[in-house]
């Protein structure tokens, strides 16, 4: 069965290479288009290089710490995870900066929505397939090298070991957690750094260029316009890719780690689980993900080879639905092959061997439902967003108020879906079922990321078309593709948040197992005592943490955006002829401001996520951290849904007005919705996507460190 994973990885990465080559062979258009695209690429490359240098220093420090305190295997897996995540971000950005100009040229040459969509999607698919391929490739290496060759998944090794520091853990859980942490750290930096970069540039370009100078979006006279387009790549492509890769890996390792602890607990309880069954449970997430990856390849292939219609939303939906449906079928087959001869009643599979498959199906269904709810709350085809645009006639204050209301309302139903799915998955296969729900939700991640990445590529293509002064018809094509991308992005965020909730819950269960450590025995109960003072205090602090984290992020965006606004104003003031087109703006200065702001500000939020569980753990012990994780998870899920949906709704309320409603462009309603969109921008593109990474980094760090701070903490030292 391991060959299935190898085939999936090879197929995904090969298909990505083919699509890359096909897109690269397309014509990059005229000289001006190439010059603009070159500037965007140069800015994006420069930022990512600088960003990766900063991350590399921190990653090396963490790796050394892991090697010393946990194990060299965990440290090696950490480096591997970081490399896979960084590679996904890098590949995504490379293809996005290559595809943008080719999409623009395709629109110019073909004047066809369908064929332009195909080029954009083919570019996006390189990212999607790389995310799925790299994530599984890394995990496959970890499983084969550390699990199989070094024997960490052998039944006799799935027990708690004590290392030289006296720290207790199950080696394989630490190794895969190291891998997940590596992915998470890169994702956090890419998301936060990219998010600050892109929003600072976007806000700077809009606030001065559009609002003050009255020049249209993506106008080459706007000094921040290239930085804005660079931001689409570093934020929406590199950030999104490593974020989804991290989510995917997080869901997989949560199931693997949980299986390992379940096995150990069963042994210690005197009811050991059949070693083949344990092995199957550890392998199942990998194989299910491989089935999902192969299904996604088919889904992507269908759109790449067929003659695409002029209905981009439908074409992209077909890809997603085909991938999801095939994942269900192939997942069932994998389940049957893996569990058919095993007695699964001992691990709480209540309706037989298909229990974990059904849990994964629940995950897929709930993911789609959360995505549909996100569309309901953020699309202007539905009431909530229409209410915001209607409120805009009454001024900015009501636009903001109505948007807040929509954002807050939008939290409830997705959370109910998550709650029902959690109960259902648990009823089917216990906590392992909950973990599999997360795996199911992201199993066809290659397809969803392909669909997601196409959006920023189309957005960039629109910018290039505008700057290169291509025909209005061309710009209409790229604009329409861009607007469809906004909806797919909102749906993608729903998947990331939903899977984070499931993964966090199963990681949390593993945390409680790990906290039990050597004391796990017959009487061990997987319970978190919420009325314990320490736990409750931890939950309170944990609940507040995402707010602090979000506040720091928004402040960082505001700071960088202020610098950008001042720079754009300065250029208009000091460089005569920018507006008449006689002089070129200093684009590089704006790029430097966004880069410097992002690189400087991205470190604090990332450090908070790593250090908070460690500091509180060493001060107050594992019960406090248990509360901290629950508090953070609950609060961050709500906040992530709120920020993603409120921001999306404000954005689309503006687009609705711009489509000629309530006076359209230039009206007071438009001004109000522009303010709403500007307020929502850092919420949906910087804060929201970073919160699901925060949850998983904290859970993974806590899982790795719990046995250390269980042993060494201030409370214990003081004998309290």
């Amino acid at each position: 069965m391991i060959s299935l994973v190898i085939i999936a990885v090879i197929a995904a990465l090969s298909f990505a290479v083919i699509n890359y080559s096909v897109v690269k062979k397309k014509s990059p258009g005229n000289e001006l288009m190439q010059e603009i695209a070159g500037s965007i690429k140069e800015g994006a490359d420069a930022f990512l290089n600088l960003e990766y240098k900063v991350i590399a220093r921190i990653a090396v420090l963490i790796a050394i710490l892991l090697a010393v305190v946990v194990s060299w295997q965990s440290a090696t897996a950490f480096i591997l995870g970081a490399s896979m995540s960084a590679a996904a971000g890098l590949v995504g950005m490379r293809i996005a900066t290559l595809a943008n100009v080719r999409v623009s040229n395709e629109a110019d040459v073909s004047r066809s929505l369908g064929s332009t969509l195909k080029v954009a999607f083919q570019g996006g698919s390189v990212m999607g397939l790389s995310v799925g391929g790299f994530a599984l490739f890394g995990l496959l290496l970890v499983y084969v090298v550390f699990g199989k060759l070094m024997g960490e998944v052998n039944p006799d090794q799935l027990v708690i070991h004590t290392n030289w520091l006296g720290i207790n853990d199950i080696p394989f859980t630490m190794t895969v957690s190291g891998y997940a942490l590596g992915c998470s750290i890169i994702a956090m930096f890419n998301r936060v750094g990219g998010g600050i970069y892109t929003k600072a540039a976007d806000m700077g370009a809009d606030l001065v260029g559009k609002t003050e100078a009255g020049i249209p979006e993506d106008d080459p006279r706007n000094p921040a316009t290239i930085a804005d387009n660079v931001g689409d790549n570093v934020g929406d492509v590199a950030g999104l890719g490593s974020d989804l890769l991290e989510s995917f890996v997080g869901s997989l390792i949560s199931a693997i780690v949980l299986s390992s602890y379940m096995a150990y607990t069963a042994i210690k309880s005197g009811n050991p689980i059949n070693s083949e069954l344990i092995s199957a449970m550890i392998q199942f997430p990998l194989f299910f993900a491989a089935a999902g990856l192969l299904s996604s390849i088919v889904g992507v292939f269908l759109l790449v080879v067929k003659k695409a219609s002029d209905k981009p939303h439908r074409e992209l939906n077909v890809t997603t639905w085909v991938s999801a449906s095939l994942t269900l079928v192939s997942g069932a087959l994998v389940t049957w092959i893996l569990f058919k001869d095993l007695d699964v009643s001992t691990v709480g599979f209540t309706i037989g061997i298909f229990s974990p498959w059904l849990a994964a199906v629940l995950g897929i269904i709930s993911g789609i439902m959360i995505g549909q709810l996100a569309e309901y709350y953020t699309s202007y085809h539905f009431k909530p967003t229409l209410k915001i645009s209607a409120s805009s006639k009454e001024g900015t204050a009501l636009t903001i108020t109505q948007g807040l209301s929509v954002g807050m309302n939008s939290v409830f139903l997705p959370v109910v879906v998550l709650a029902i799915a959690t109960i259902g998955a648990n009823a089917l296969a216990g906590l392992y079922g909950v973990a599999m729900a997360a795996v199911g939700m992201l199993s066809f991640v290659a397809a969803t990321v392909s669909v997601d990445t196409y959006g920023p590529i189309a957005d960039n293509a629109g910018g290039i078309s505008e700057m290169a002064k291509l025909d209005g018809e061309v710009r209409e094509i790229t604009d329409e593709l861009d607007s469809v991308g906004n909806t797919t992005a909102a749906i993608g965020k729903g998947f990331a948040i939903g899977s984070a909730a499931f993964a966090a819950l199963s990681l949390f269960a593993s945390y409680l197992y790990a906290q039990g450590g050597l004391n796990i025995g017959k009487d061990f109960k997987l319970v978190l005592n919420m009325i314990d003072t320490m736990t409750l205090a931890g939950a309170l602090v944990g609940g507040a943490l995402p707010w602090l984290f979000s506040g720091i992020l928004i402040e960082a965006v505001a700071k960088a955006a202020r610098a950008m606004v001042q720079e754009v104003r300065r250029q208009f003031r000091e460089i005569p002829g920018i507006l008449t087109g006689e002089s070129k703006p200093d684009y590089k200065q704006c790029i430097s401001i966004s880069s410097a702001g992002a690189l400087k500000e991205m470190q604090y939020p990332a450090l908070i996520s790593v250090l908070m569980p460690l500091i509180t753990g060493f001060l107050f012990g594992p019960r406090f951290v248990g509360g901290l994780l629950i508090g953070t998870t609950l609060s961050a899920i709500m906040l992530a849904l709120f920020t993603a949906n409120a921001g999306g709704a404000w954005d689309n309320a503006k687009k609705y007005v711009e489509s000629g409603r309530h006076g359209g462009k230039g009206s007071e309603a438009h001004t109000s919705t522009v303010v709403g969109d500007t307020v929502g921008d850092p919420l949906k593109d910087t804060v929201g996507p970073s919160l699901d990474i925060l949850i998983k980094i904290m859970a993974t760090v806590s899982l790795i460190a719990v046995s250390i701070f269980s042993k060494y903490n201030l409370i214990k030292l003081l004998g309290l």
Partner: protein
Amino acid sequence: MSVHYYLTLFPMEAMIASQLEPAAFGSYMAIGNRKGSAERLMFIEVFESELGDSFDLDYARRRCVAHSDGRMKNSVYLSVYRALEAVPVDAFGALWLITKDGRSMSLEQSSYTDLDTWDGSALYQELCPAHPLIVSALKPKHFAEYIVEDSTKVTMPAIFFADLTIPDFDGDSFTGNIGGYFDKMMEHLKYCVTELKDGKGKLTKVVDRSSFAAFNFQVIGRGLYIGTSGGRLVFYPMPSREELKKKHYDWAKSASIF
């Protein structure tokens, strides 16, 4: 270096001499040499040969010379009021519409043809020399005649005006990109149109006297007109949306039409 003559009609009425070509002149007037102003502008190229002696052209030629550093002279004001009435119809060249960020589009004169459809009322923004927003039961040609005709109680020697698209009062929230022009007066506008259509013999009704400054290119309907005494009407048709998209996309985008 030749001297050009421009009759600005919006936002202020003036006759200006300049060494700049029309697009450069429009850009200069809208945004200045350095960022500092941003205003929409409409002006007409005026043929010097047809100008007659209403303006001091010798003064213009004397003053409108390049600066010592070689820069061209941007503007020499020859008159800042009652300029429109002083320009003979034959002197009118192209009409230039300049957006806030300096994008320009020129409209050529066209022979006037009556409206294909008529539902009994039209909305006119008088732009120069008076500025009220009027709803009228008269078609453009008759409206112009009515304003400049001696027999009418209140008249003007010449009038520059635009016919505007009347928003769909009965539709849902779809208005098209018409900007904020009607934001505060939608109900009143609806009332005025209804009253005029009631057929009490009223030919015109003032909708608003003060919204002129907020006038924008998005609301222009069929085109812009200059009516002069003697019944002559100069018509500058506005390009269709399709034509704008094909030939003047940057201007239309800058004017927030797209």
